């Protein structure tokens, strides 16, 4: 894989995140710190999972059930982590509000809270893209490229960066939905993120079959688009409710 192709794969997986970072997150230093900490937390969860599964890998059998167990446990751990992150986030919002009162500045607006959720989700997405896709690119520089037998029409790196893009979207926006759901107490939103995450993980199991990636990856993108649309709707609804509440008060 040449260096130009490598840069192309990186931009494919991380391009939208980069533009989101430059436009939204880099403007407020606190959001950059949130992004870095949530990337670290996701990495720690990944290390914990690998500590558990290392003894069993690589799988000797070709059946699909050990892989599905792996996916199930990983998704379960990461969703539990999301709950924990919500608690930490709530605590931090309280501390920030107390600090704002002390320096007599306004409390956090709802857009601020959503931006923090966005930065947290993007941390997860960037961690996924970096560890599952980008870190595999650098040892492979050279004139040739690599194909996987189960998906032999396109190079392995291209497949993995396309999947990484879908997962980045899912992680980034499902965090916004989840935090929104927890703060409002909306059950539908609260269950949305784990369900979508699990569905996405299960769809990647389809890739185990020969030629499965032709079916698996479009399904993955369906999940990504569903997440995007639902996030847009939720945010729009919340903001218009907020605005009508403000105009009612005034």
């Amino acid at each position, binding site marked *: 894989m040449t260096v130009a192709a490598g840069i192309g794969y990186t931009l494919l997986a991380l391009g939208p995140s980069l533009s989101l970072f430059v436009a939204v997150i880099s403007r407020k*230093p*606190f959001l950059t710190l949130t992004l870095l900490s949530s990337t670290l937390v996701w990495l720690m969860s990944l290390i914990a999972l690998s500590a558990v599964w290392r003894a069993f890998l690589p799988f000797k059998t070709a059946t699909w059930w050990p892989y599905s167990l792996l996916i199930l446990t990983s998704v379960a751990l990461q969703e539990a982590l999301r709950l924990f992150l919500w608690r930490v986030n709530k605590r931090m919002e309280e501390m920030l509000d107390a600090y704002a009162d002390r320096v007599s500045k306004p409390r956090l*607006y709802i857009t601020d809270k959503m931006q923090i959720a966005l930065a947290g989700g993007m941390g997860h997405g960037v961690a996924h893209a970096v560890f599952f896709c980008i870190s595999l690119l650098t040892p492979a520089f050279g004139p040739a490229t690599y194909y996987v037998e189960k998906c032999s029409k396109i190079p392995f790196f291209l497949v993995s960066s396309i999947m990484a893009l879908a997962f980045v979207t899912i992680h980034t926006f499902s965090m916004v939905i989840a935090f929104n759901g927890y703060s409002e107490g909306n059950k539908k939103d609260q269950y949305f993120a784990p369900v979508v995450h699990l569905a996405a993980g299960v769809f990647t199991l389809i*890739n185990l079959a020969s030629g499965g990636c032709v079916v698996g990856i479009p399904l993955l993108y369906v999940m990504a688009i569903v997440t995007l649309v639902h996030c847009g709707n939720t945010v729009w609804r919340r903001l218009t409710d907020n605005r009508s509440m403000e105009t009612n008060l005034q």
Partner: protein
Amino acid sequence: MEQNRRPKTILETCGEEIIRIVTPVSICMLLVVILVSVLNGGSSLDDGLSFATMATMAYSESSSDSIWDKIKGALLNSLVFVAVVTVATFLLVLLFYLNCTKFLKYYMGFSSLLVLGFMGGEIALFLIKVSNFPIDCFTFAVALYNFTVVGVVAVFISKMAIFVTQAYLVVIGMLVAYWFTLLPEWTTWGLLVAMSLYDLAAVLLPGGPLRLLVELAMARDEDIPALVYEARPVISDAGLGDGVVRRRVWREGRGDLDEDQRLRSDLVSDSSLRTYGESEREINIVDAEEGRALGRDSELAAPLIQHINIRMNSLENAVSGENLALEGIGLGSSGAIKLGLGDFIFYSVLVGRAAMYDFMTVYACYLAVIAGLGITLMLLAFYQKALPALPFSVLLGVLFYLLTRLLLETFVVQCSINLLMF
């Protein structure tokens, strides 16, 4: 629009000081990783190069030794290195105690001349060779000379443009860090762990040299002459208009000792300030700004205490130069966070060594180092005294390196090969 009418929340500025330290640390690490991957690509230097440095005085590692021999050798090397550094730091404390500040400043300039001129020149030659860049030796000599002289002046004189000083400090850190990554592998890791333990002891124990130095500096209310990276202080919106005022306050805070003292006493006694060849208007702005800073009950107001700690970093190479570097974290007189150059160097050595294995370890170690730095900064804000910046970051970094190399890599590769992701 609604957005413009609403007042800004704290989310706009909260955490800015941390980002102002994290950014140059990240840039230095990135540069070292790029240098390592460009210059060491392919060949491994563990067996070939056995150059005599201070760090490999006791034991020269070769790849044919057993693991146990390598560990013993690395330990021996680290002990020797830490002993040399301790002796050098005590010497520094002695010189500072005897008021030889001028000598120390000249020594600092001399060591940055060596680093920028000789090490920088050597690495530039490697880069030119690798990239086949067409340049003749006269142009190269003139360019290197100019680069070095500006760097030495930036280190010496505190009235240089702050961006130039910061850039040169990052470059010096990068060059020394790259040099350290040329050491054998086990020795490097042993050195990192030994230095962080030494840092912990030297700053926190009552008899530690760095603690003595900090107490001396505090008692005399002086600036320790050493290579320190100072981030620009954060000034909150005073409505006076941006860049100029911000610069002014920083420069006044970091200026000569006498200027500093006089400014503070004048502000307190409310008398007129003397001009040092600067216009009256600028100083009035500073006066107003400082006064506001002191009067305001804000977290961003400057604590008027300086806490710095120091470690001297000795490196013997073929040219037999020595470097004076500073390590540790403290609060500057204008509230800006100061991070010693030794910290930059050792963080970058850790990440550079990780880059020699694989980039997955680089990403993991980067996150670990930044996390350690964040923890140290939070403790700094909490305890308000000089703290060692190495232990948390280096120990977390080493831990994450081992975990990634042994556990994570197989897991991720296996999942990716089967196109399984979550």
